[in-house]
């Protein structure tokens, strides 16, 4: 591998990895609080992308305004989903909630197909934020720098919120025991809603960044990043926010370098994601930074 190819791959890896990380943080956050694999998270990416798309093209809003609108709409949708589909199932077995999440996911995807059609649309790239950067023989999009920056800023913000603020501590308390949390005068519904606002907002940012990076959007566009980022979140230890970040980078870098080093194996790229995941889990059964919750006997 030449040095130039290595650098190019590095740039590729950073841009993919930080995107994975960004979306994985949202997953992990909701999981951390509700112990719920929020399948609808993937579809929130799609909703955000479409809102931003229509904002820019149909309502000819400036890009930043439609991005903002997308984040708000997605956050509201996320809260609504929680209210309608997850809240009534708080006492139910976890798997029922999971099925409910899958149901919401199916619903959003198929509503998308019915309402806007399955044909993909081309997502506009505002020139102010997306341009090509060339450094010698290496070339990459400005997004390769912007996305990691956004990811890190959000990571720090979310980590601070969860660990240092009162709401954050309440979130973690609620994650284990709704009833006792309510005995501490915590309004559980409000805390859960806040979690979904933040988680869905993160999904929206992820969806927009994803659409800028891969500017083609369709109703099923969330499925693929949804799975990959979930893998990333698990790899890092689901529930752990720095873990999600780490998982995203490991996965993104890993995928890029696998193909770069062993092009014959490029067809196995998705399998590879699972192979490293399984490999990591065998040594750390709760992911790289996952808390090792041993049940005290």
């Amino acid at each position, binding site marked *: 591998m030449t040095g130039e190819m290595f650098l190019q791959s590095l740039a590729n890896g950073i841009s993919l990895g930080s995107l994975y990380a960004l979306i994985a943080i949202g997953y992990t956050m909701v999981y951390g609080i509700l112990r719920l694999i929020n399948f609808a998270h993937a579809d929130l990416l799609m909703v955000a992308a479409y809102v931003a798309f229509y904002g820019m093209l149909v309502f000819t809003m400036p890009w930043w305004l439609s991005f903002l609108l997308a984040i708000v709409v997605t956050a509201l949708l996320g809260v609504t989903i929680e209210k309608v589909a997850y809240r009534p199932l708080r006492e139910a077995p976890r798997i*029922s909630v999971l*099925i409910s999440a899958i149901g919401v996911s199916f619903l959003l995807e198929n509503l998308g197909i019915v309402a806007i059609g399955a044909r993909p649309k081309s997502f506009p790239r505002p020139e102010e934020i997306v341009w090509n950067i060339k450094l010698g023989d290496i070339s990459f999009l400005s997004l390769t720098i912007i996305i990691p920056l956004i990811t890190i800023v959000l990571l720090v913000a979310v980590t601070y919120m969860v660990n240092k603020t009162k709401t954050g501590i309440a979130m973690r308390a609620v994650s284990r025991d709704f009833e006792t949390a309510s005995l501490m005068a915590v309004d559980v519904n409000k805390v859960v809603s806040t979690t979904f606002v933040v988680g869905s907002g993160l999904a929206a940012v992820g969806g927009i960044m994803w659409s800028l990076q891969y500017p083609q959007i369709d109703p099923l566009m969330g499925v693929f990043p949804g799975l990959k980022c*979930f893998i990333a979140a698990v790899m890092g230890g689901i529930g752990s926010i720095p873990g999600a970040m780490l998982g995203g980078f490991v996965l993104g870098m890993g995928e890029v370098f696998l193909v770069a080093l062993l092009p014959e194996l490029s067809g196995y790229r998705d399998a590879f994601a699972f192979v490293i995941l399984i490999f990591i889990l065998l040594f750390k059964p709760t992911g790289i930074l996952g808390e090792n919750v041993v049940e005290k006997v």
Partner: protein
Amino acid sequence: MDRQRIKSLLTLGLIVLSCLVLYLGEEYLGKFNTRVLNLAAIFVILGASMNLVLGFTGMFSLGHAGFMCVGAYVSAILTMSPESKEMIYFMEPIISPLDKIHWPLFPAIITAGLVAALFGFLIGFPALRLRDDYLAIATLGFGEIIRIVVTNAISVTNGSLGLKNIPPIKSLWVYWGFAIATIWILKQLINSSWGYAFKAIRDNEIAAEAMGIDIFKHKLLSFTIGAFFAGLAGALMGHLITSVDPTMFRFLFTFQILLIIVLGGLGSLTGSVIAGVLVTVMMEALRFVEQPMNFFGLTIPGIPGMRMVIFSLLLLAVILFYRQGLMGTREFNWDWVLDKLGVGRRKEKGVGVDG
């Protein structure tokens, strides 16, 4: 007449009745309905076997589609005629000795199950050390890995081109025969000492281990049996559709099975049977919403995708209002029927020894 006797007679009656229904179905149902029912039988097998792993043993495993994939390919490759293989593998010829093998259907289907079970065993070995969501994602991963390997191993599986001309099976007898046998075996298993061990592991792993149960061995057993029946169902699916390719066995397929067992009730075989049939039939029955409709001369054009929208809404409604699924953990049994009918009973609640 004592109750045991009545129950045996009723069971016998039910068997005769099912045979009669199958016979009549075969004669009068028509091809389309038969096909849907055959598909339902496959989903019943899938649901029941996944329920064993997930509902009864409490292992959150999502690798079912992968095991189906193994089963479907094994049975297809074993039963396709050598001429067909030569024709289908036009990019890279199939490797020897698979090119000459030409087995009859029945042993091939069983072998498919066994090979899938072997995969289950090999995958379970490392994976079952994990728990909950971690187990789920790892098994899902193994399932996907199987599928991706099948996609890339062109000289064995023909890759993404898939296989066709798989010998067809059309008869209700075969599919429902396998389904009924599966249910019977799983019911026997679940009511046996082993079944209780599975449930104990689900309820409280630490206590089960303290009662002398080898957790790992039992989990592996349950997982392997689940894989066996998934393989069987995969093989049957191949013979129903007569062509297979890797895209059939995406992980989304596993979610469809998951949906069936949760709808039916985790930990209820009866529930899996009911939901398996219901979901399959409903998917077809719901098609009318995509056809153009005529309301008093007002024609509403068919909206593609509407069926899935309604399906998702129904699914959500069931989960939100019947959170335990249709059956909860209850099972169909004659005692219940007899109680309803007011036939007197002695106090003889059966445990383990099946009545």
